[in-house]
């Protein structure tokens, strides 16, 4: 196969090189669009002292929540961390550091990381705790906070379909943080529901071009639902 073929044979090779103390950027919103099999492999590997960047931290027993069971995470950067009892316990007793970041700022910091922008000014958080200790500036009469880019040693990403070159498409709201995570990883590992041959996906409708993807693997997903809400008939 060509030098652009990103497909790896198994999850072990997908996460080869992941080691203690690394920063891990993870796509997903709640349990939607999370790289659930890659997270399970991080647990199996047993790497420790991870710094995790993800909008949420999973729930007890699923998603990133499983990495708290064996004390693998030291630092968390998220916008919302509810719905996880073990996490709450570790947070309260100081086992893990938590850096709460406004959701849009988190998305943009990841985007900036992948885009080679070291920092940016945003009005979000000005005059709140979030701005404490950060540079602020008045631009055209409005106050802004300087927020720095985030990059990861590894990015774990979930997409719907990709071709072997890593050109990927996400599905519905499972896109969320995944495209920014993909660009912000020094090593980006993507798991998808279906891998197809180059040329099978319309280049007009690619969400993440293959240049951002280093390793690609096809998996089966449980896709657990956090809050199952239905309407009548």
């Amino acid at each position, binding site marked *: 196969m060509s030098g652009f073929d990103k497909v790896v044979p198994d999850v072990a090779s997908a996460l080869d090189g992941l080691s203690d103390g690394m920063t891990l950027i993870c796509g997903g*919103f*709640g*349990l*939607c*669009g999370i790289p659930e099999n890659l997270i399970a492999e991080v647990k199996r590997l047993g790497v420790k002292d991870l710094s995790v960047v993800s*909008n949420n931290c999973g729930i007890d027993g699923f998603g990133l929540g499983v990495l708290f069971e064996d004390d693998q995470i030291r630092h968390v950067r*998220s*916008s*919302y*961390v*509810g719905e996880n009892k073990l996490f*709450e316990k570790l947070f*309260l007793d100081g086992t893990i550091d938590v850096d*709460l970041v*406004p*959701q*849009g*700022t*988190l*998305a*943009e910091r*990841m*985007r900036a990381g992948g885009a080679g922008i070291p920092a940016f000014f*945003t*009005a*979000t*958080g*000005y*005059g*709140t*705790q*979030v701005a404490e200790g950060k540079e602020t500036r008045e631009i055209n009469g409005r106050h802004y906070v300087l927020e720095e880019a985030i990059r990861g040693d590894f990015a774990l990403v979930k997409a*719907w379909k990709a071709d072997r070159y890593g050109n990927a498409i*996400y*599905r*519905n*709201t*499972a*896109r*969320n*943080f*995944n*495209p*920014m995570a993909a660009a912000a990883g020094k090593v980006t590992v993507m798991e998808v529901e279906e891998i197809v041959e180059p040329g099978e996906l319309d280049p007009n409708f690619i*969400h993440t071009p293959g240049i951002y993807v280093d390793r690609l693997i096809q998996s089966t997903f449980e*896709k*657990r*639902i*956090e*809050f*199952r*809400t*239905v*309407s*009548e*008939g």
Partner: protein
Amino acid sequence: MALTREQLAQRVAQELRDGYYVNLGIGIPTLVSNYVPDGMEVMLQSENGLLGMGPFPTEDTIDADTINAGKQTVTAVKGASFFSSAESFEMIRGGHVDLTVLGAFEVDVHGNIASWMIPGKLIKGMGGAMDLVAGADNIIVTMTHADRHGNSKLLDQCTLPLTGAACIKRVVTDLAYLEIRDGAFHLIERAPGVAVDEIKSKTAGKLVVPASVPEMSLT
């Protein structure tokens, strides 16, 4: 009588306009979507990456890949679009969303809002609330006028950690519709049957009361 949650949502819905893109927060704001006037089209933005959020799915159409910002399963209406979280907050921060409705613990006469954290209680995070209040021009805060101990939530100065500074101009409570300007709450409407004196006694922050305060219309 103080407004019920549904009546509060009904009053806020009167601020909708045809063609509005609207972001509704969790709780009472979500109920606003039940009162979109007939013949009017609004498009709901869900900050996890959906413009054109529809009702909950049926058991047959439930889809784990389609959720709202409260992580509930939803549907997408005809004409909807999906996008990344970065793009979603570009819409919000860039001022493209026409109306944002969200709840709060406290609001003050300077337009400050506290809605995400109570010291001593478990901190879960601000989610997208700080981005929403910083980015939107047209924001309505919905909340009860006082907490369940009777303490006013409309203050001279917020006591809880802020979600945003000087960003709130309109508040709809179970007792009144108020505007914030020039360092004061201005009483614009009162809930049907609620006396101005009750509103005065439950508003801790500076309150400006005009000679006559009309009752809200809820039809």
